[in-house]
């Protein structure tokens, strides 16, 4: 079926949808008609294709933690700032103490909280750092049956991500292993959705702003 040439009206978004096979059939038909007729459209498509398929840096896949807003298992959390108890405020100063309250985790006596922070491309465990700090989640229980954590924002500006995983208390981590191996079991459990986990994002702003 032929029709007038509308190739100039085809947006980059439509061309990109076509490239990744996400275009609806009628969009794909329009693109293909345009490609048959317009050299300029073929060139635009080639440029977009090149940008789209530019080599990507491989991503480390050790810790598989859900992005903020996506909670695995029955848990939810809210951030309190230490100096202003307003819930939902997510801007802090570098080094400022903030509190995170988590609710809904079942069997808190049988779980350990593992707290991580994202540095660059990877995650780093900041609690527990030593066997002596390895305590069950119920130790953090507050008066309202939630679990409260007191944390200090990192000194780097911008968005900081923090994550909580609530690992079964047993088996206990082998503290004699190097850190890269110590948490392998937890990483496997997170990959298979066996551990309640959540993450949150803080905006760290400079003191003058």
């Amino acid at each position: 079926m032929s029709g007038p040439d509308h190739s100039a009206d085809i947006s980059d978004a439509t061309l990109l949808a076509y490239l990744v096979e996400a275009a609806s059939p009628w969009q794909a038909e329009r693109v293909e008609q345009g490609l048959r007729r317009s050299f300029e459209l073929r060139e635009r498509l080639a440029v977009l294709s090149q940008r789209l398929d530019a080599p990507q840096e491989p991503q480390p896949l050790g810790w598989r933690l859900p992005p903020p807003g996506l909670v695995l298992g029955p848990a939810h959390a809210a951030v309190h700032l230490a100096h202003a108890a307003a819930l939902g405020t997510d801007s802090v100063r570098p080094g400022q103490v903030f509190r995170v309250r988590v609710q809904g985790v079942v069997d808190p006596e049988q779980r350990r909280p593992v707290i991580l922070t994202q540095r660059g491309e990877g995650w780093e465990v900041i609690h527990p750092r030593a066997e002596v700090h390895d305590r069950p989640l119920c130790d953090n229980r507050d008066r309202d049956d939630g679990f409260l954590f007191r944390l200090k924002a990192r000194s780097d500006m911008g968005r900081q991500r923090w994550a909580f995983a609530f690992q079964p208390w047993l088996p206990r981590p082998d503290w004699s292993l190097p850190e890269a191996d110590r948490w392998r079991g937890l990483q496997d459990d997170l990959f298979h959705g066996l551990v309640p986990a959540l993450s949150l994002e803080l905006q760290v702003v400079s003191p003058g702003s």
Partner: protein
Amino acid sequence: MANSPESGPGFALASIVAGHGPAGERVEALSELLSAWRFHGDRALLSRLLELLERHPLPAQPQVDAPLLAPGATVEDNRLAWACLHLADRGRWVRQMERRQWQASRFRGQAGPDLDAAAAWGELLSPMPWAGRARWERDQLAAVLRVARAVAMSAPGEGLGAFFLDDVRESFFPRLAVGGNSGREERLDLAFRTLETGGDGPIACYVGLLPPTSMGHLCRGAVLRPASRRTLRLYLGHPAGAEAQRYLLWSQLLAEPDRLVPFCDLQLARQLLYAWKRGTGWKMGKIEGRNLSALTGRLRAVAIRLAASDDVLFERVLGAVLALPALAARTRVAVARQTWSWCWEVCHRGGDVELLHTTTAPCLGDDPTPGPLEWGEHGALLRTWLCKVALRMEPRILDRWVEDHDSHRQDSTLNRLLLELPAQLVDASGPMKRRSYHRLRALLAWLGPRPWVEVAEVFQPVADLDPTARGLPGKLAAAVAGSWHPAIGLPRGGLPRGVRRFRGLSDWIEGERRRDERP
């Protein structure tokens, strides 16, 4: 435009507009011309469509005023010809898209990947979906990230931020495994998107899959917007009133689920007519494509909602997915489309990934209204009530009420008879609600003369009574004993006239039948 008035369609056009000849011939010609639309076999609907086009012609616009007919044709005829010819063209375009894009030629089967895809679906739709994470990420994650990069490249403003690709990677499988209120919605969304690539197109794939319980949801959607209410009125013709029409559509879809496809086609055609009236919609495929996507999305939302809480339907969906040929290719396309929609949703929400939001906007909550009346369930009661109607007044008054519910305000006998209806035949009545009979009107409109035929047969002894005989009430009670439903009281007064009227019932039914058969 592929067709010209000199060829076959031109001949059909001439039959439709020239001299406004016999209605039957004009409708036949229109049916031939619009054969690509799946409502083309419904002659009564085409007759209404033709009437609509004539009564509300397209306004003067350069596009529609190009001369199509022989010199001497009026401007109105020319616009009618333009509308018919372009509707035909757009119908062919919709069908061509379905054939070319949704069906087998685009999806090539590959034994190994297809088996792998079947195993992946088996895991994803099992009670332990996480077991399939490694396989899904191995097969799909690269394509998912490519889609995310494409969205990031086309996102407006400052883009989606540094974490966007990480978020897409980390949420892809968890979203599928536990996304949605019940934890099944996102998996079902992907399953239905996969099914939409098979069969006879995205709408038809739902026809065999959706259970009867879904029809109430669909019909409620059909009366929510003014535009779809107008389409429904055009589709059904009668009775008047959105609620009764909803129940009539509901009854039709319960009896013949296949009717969903022509109804959806009519929605597309009607949207085109509206667009042309507004002076838009000239670009081939834009209106049809957008509306077909919206219709498919609404059907998908209903299907997801039902299958998420129905284990049997959930299993049927899995079975239907596994039965698809070229499953790997179809899954790949469905994943790309779902990821594209999801990424844009995230983009519109400022980058927030929300677990409880599903990619397809969820459909409305449960329909609180009762389902349509069924003749099988209420036939005995309704036959008795109709017999009483036939004894107390002319049946045509009830027929007029079915067509136009306001007519009963003028008729006190009908009002009294309606008040005698038992609660199960009334839609809702209570301190805050007016007593209404939309379901009854829809059922009577749906069944046509059939209930009257049954009344004439079952209560034949009434016609045999002598209207001049003494003790007629007792004789009537004896004549209908065994057939009369006890929930309806026997008529007491005016029986001689009532029996005479009842004797004329068969003639009236025959007259109505002949009238319906006339073209």
